[in-house]
């Protein structure tokens, strides 16, 4: 199943992001699948240190290694896109 269709995978991703960024006041349900995570619209208010924490979370929990910030920005856009990257089919 392609990642963006896999609700369990997307829930795991959202939970990881909320935990790594310590956004305890936001629930996974409140985080939309198609919103740009690093935009104002996501309501997450993430910065570069959050990007590093998410990068580490992707590596430890999903075995995805993103070498630098350019790779990160290309891959970590929306929950749907990230899920598709992790699980292309």
């Amino acid at each position, binding site marked *: 199943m392609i990642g963006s269709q896999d609700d369990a995978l997307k829930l795991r991703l959202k939970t990881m992001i909320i935990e790594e960024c310590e956004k305890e006041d936001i629930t996974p349900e409140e985080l939309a699948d198609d919103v740009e995570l690093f935009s104002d619209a996501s309501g997450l208010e993430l*910065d*570069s*240190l959050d990007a590093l924490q998410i*990068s*580490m979370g992707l*590596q*430890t929990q999903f075995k995805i*290694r993103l070498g*630098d*910030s350019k790779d990160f920005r290309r891959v970590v856009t929306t929950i749907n896109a990230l899920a598709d990257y992790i699980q292309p089919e």
Partner: protein
Amino acid sequence: MITILGGEILSALGEKERRLKHLSDGTYSTVEKTMTLMGEDLSFAYYTIDDGERNSALSIPLRYLEDVVQKAIDKLSLTSDDLSRCGLFVGSASNDLSLSLPLGQNYDNSQVENVACKRIGNGYYADHLTTHFGLHDFSLTYNTACTSSANAVIDAASMLEGGIIDYALVVGFEMFAPISFEGFAAMQLLSPGKIAPFDRDREGIVLGEAVSALFLSRDDVASSPWCFHGGVSSCETHSVTGANPDGVGVSEVISAALKVADVKESDITAVKAHGTASALNDMAEMNGMKKVFTASPDFFSFKPYIGHTLGSCGSSELLLMLECVDAGFVPGTPNFVNRDEALDWTPLKEKMPCENGLFMLNYFGFGGNNTSIVIEKVKS
């Protein structure tokens, strides 16, 4: 007037004759260090202290510290009476091994009984040096990341000015620490290749280790052609990871340092930049300098010679500055090739003849800590 008497340093550059040749020729040497991060082997350059007999025993830091301080004492012919009036200011960004090793061994709480009932941990090195060399009882250990020993210099000068001590020993201490090395990798701040401050294609920091001992005094106690005119440290709360790239915090601390030193920007002969080659630090530093200097001053970075020595770079780079100018030059910046349009100004590529003058030394670190110091070597 606060005088800077000189000192000694252990770094990747080796003994004095060799290090002056490196600094004059724009050459350096690094080793490869590998780490396993998430099952992946990664390799980075590292500037290691040039010492053939090296091992990782706990006694090594103390041996290095005693060795470097003793050499500085011998060089300056300080007496035991001088030392009894000498306060100690240690700057280090790393945890003291005397406690971090037992903590490492006690992770499963199995070593409780094996630890002697004796104060260890932060301040241990300072305490050891005070006892070993019979220093004055005033000592503090500074941990303000990359500005640690630069802030120690400022406070040493202040305590000398207040007459509480007559001599001050500033020690910068940083040795290889796996957690720090891996932490910088996790922050994606390490360069996969070399360290190229202010270069268009700079890719990040290369870390290094250095142990330095620097003595200061007052002109009524001990004279020197070198004097400390003033320094300012401030905390920029823009981001915990460093200075604001717009340069506002950097420019404020530079301006304040010029003010307390009572000199104009146009009087500065050369600037020792922090120059870590991280994309944002170099940007913040250049934007800050541009707000204060009307034209580009001659500036350079010591990081390509000894690496980023973190808490040690304050006193270590100050000492190298004295040695270079005493030898008649200000060094160039190895690895600088291409001008970065966004930075505009470019560092000295080659060494510049220089025998005296006013010098600004800048340091910026995690925790928003920015420090700028102005020193002078007067004409003989």
